[in-house]
């Protein structure tokens, strides 16, 4: 056999489509990284100007937030307490209800029921948050809390805002944890049933632990949405920055402050303008921290078995 005739046959031919597609994917991947870095820079650079004038300790631990007053004060704690209250209240409602709905849909409901219920649930996620905000102020705060329950509260409260925000994130938590529960192989359900476990035992002791990383991801997403939600809290929690000590009090959250300050009456480059970015950066760091902590919790839980 002559080898000269074969020479070169194994050499690669140019594949332009392959190269183009690879380039496209590279651009897509790079874009997300560049945009993320851009956002961080946009937050960090104005914040540097801010922290040059306001000591970071005063910002983090000060208890009076009054950036527009003559005797300006930049203690961010009042905003943080309002955000914590609304977020915790939202999770208090959304986590049990969301997980309950997920378990019902995934483990108990007949497939015909599931086919109807799941889209209905997801419609809740499509309601604009401004609608939720008015619902919180007009109905929950004014009618339910004040008229019906006769509670001692003003026109706004973190309870009304938090509750409605909870309703808003139920579909997020329910839908993602339902996906996680449904993804657990049926073999585990059958194995559990064959040992004489009832459906609740199977769900709580086998399916839930097996789906825990997806469920935690759902809750994290819920937390992120609650921390970052703006319209509901701006409308229903109030616009007064003060330390919030109870659920019936009003208070301005970090996001509500940013929305208010960004409305346009502060001069670009002024200290007041830079506060916006300092608060935004803090919000970003809090969300990031929540994510990291949750991921490490999931890792530890999964190592346990």
């Amino acid at each position, binding site marked *: 056999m002559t080898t000269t005739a074969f020479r070169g046959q194994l050499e690669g031919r140019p594949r332009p489509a392959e190269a183009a597609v690879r380039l496209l994917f590279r651009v897509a991947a790079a874009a997300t990284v560049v945009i993320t870095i851009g956002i961080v820079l946009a937050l960090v650079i104005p914040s540097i100007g801010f922290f040059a004038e306001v000591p970071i300790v005063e910002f983090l631990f000060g208890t009076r937030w009054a950036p527009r007053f003559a005797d300006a004060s930049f203690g961010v704690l009042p905003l943080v307490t309002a955000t914590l209250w609304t977020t915790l209240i939202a999770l208090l409602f959304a986590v049990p209800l969301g997980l309950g709905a997920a378990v019902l849909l995934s483990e108990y409901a*007949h*497939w015909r029921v599931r086919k109807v219920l799941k889209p209905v649930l997801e419609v809740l996620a499509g309601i604009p948050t401004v609608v939720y905000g008015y619902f919180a102020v007009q109905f929950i705060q004014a009618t339910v809390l004040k008229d019906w329950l006769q509670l001692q509260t003003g026109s706004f409260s973190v309870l009304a805002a938090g509750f409605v925000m909870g309703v808003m994130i139920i579909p997020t938590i329910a839908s993602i944890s339902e996906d996680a529960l449904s993804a657990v*192989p049926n*073999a*585990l*359900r*059958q*194995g*559990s*049933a*064959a*040992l*004489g*476990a*009832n459906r609740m*035992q199977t769900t709580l*002791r*086998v399916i839930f*632990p*097996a789906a825990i990383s997806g469920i935690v991801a759902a809750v994290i997403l819920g937390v992120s949405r609650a921390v970052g939600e703006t319209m509901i809290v701006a409308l229903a929690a109030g616009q007064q920055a003060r330390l919030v000590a109870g659920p019936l009090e009003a208070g301005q959250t970090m996001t509500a402050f940013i929305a208010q300050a960004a409305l346009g009456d502060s001069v670009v480059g002024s200290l007041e303008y830079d506060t916006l970015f300092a608060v935004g950066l803090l919000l970003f760091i809090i969300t990031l921290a929540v994510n990291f902590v949750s991921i490490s919790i999931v890792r530890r839980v999964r190592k346990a*078995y």
Partner: protein
Amino acid sequence: MVIHTAVRTGASLPDRPYGQLECEHVDVYYGSFRAVTDVSLPFGIHEVTALIGPSGCGKSTLLRSLNRMNDLIDGARVDGRVTFMGEDIYGKRVDAIEVRRRIGMVFQKPNPFPKSIYDNIAYGPRVNGMRVDDMGDLVEEALTKAALWDEVKDKLKQSALGLSGGQQQRLCIARTIAVKPDVILMDEPCSALDPIATAKIEDLMHELRDEYTIVIVTHNMQQAARVADRTAFFTAQVDETSGDRTGVLVEFGKTAQIFENPQDQRTEDYISGRFG
């Protein structure tokens, strides 16, 4: 083809089994599809009964109806009677959960829970609220009976998912034993395993026969011959007018008789390799 039959034949095996578990004219439907038609079959106490036959003959479907696992499938329905110790397990006041505690099941693919080896075994006794003096002893006993103790005794707290396929399947058997059932149903328990792991499980079945009634579905005729006291041969029957397929029982007898002296032409064709 020469097939060596089970060790325990002849004198020690009664001519007619004492059926601890019994099917009487059982039909199994999935919606309007009749997967199994008119099966009457006794499963002898402390015997191994093998269900063999070609794919689609309804043997796995029949097996799942013996401990009401079919309840978990939408549209599945059983006609006729399945009795355990004389009680109809589909009776109005019967709780499927009680049935499954007494009639356990081992599946085709090993399905350990994503928990530790220890918790896999302890799960059944815990969910059943069994009164256990020392769970550690119970776990050891179950793993010993399943011939797995020596391999895992130093890593009981490790994930069961780290075990090999054969070890996982023996863990699933141990898990079943731990709730102290009377009957163990096995749905092709070795089909996902290599020959060495298969041999271990077959040895195990010989051991377990002394304490449990075992029903095994298998595709492997040599396996049926090696482990079973009695064998039931099923086939898929096609209705000539409608074209519907349904599983029927062709022949049931002592394993030696089924393999050495089949009475039905279809059985003979199947075991001699002319079909399926």
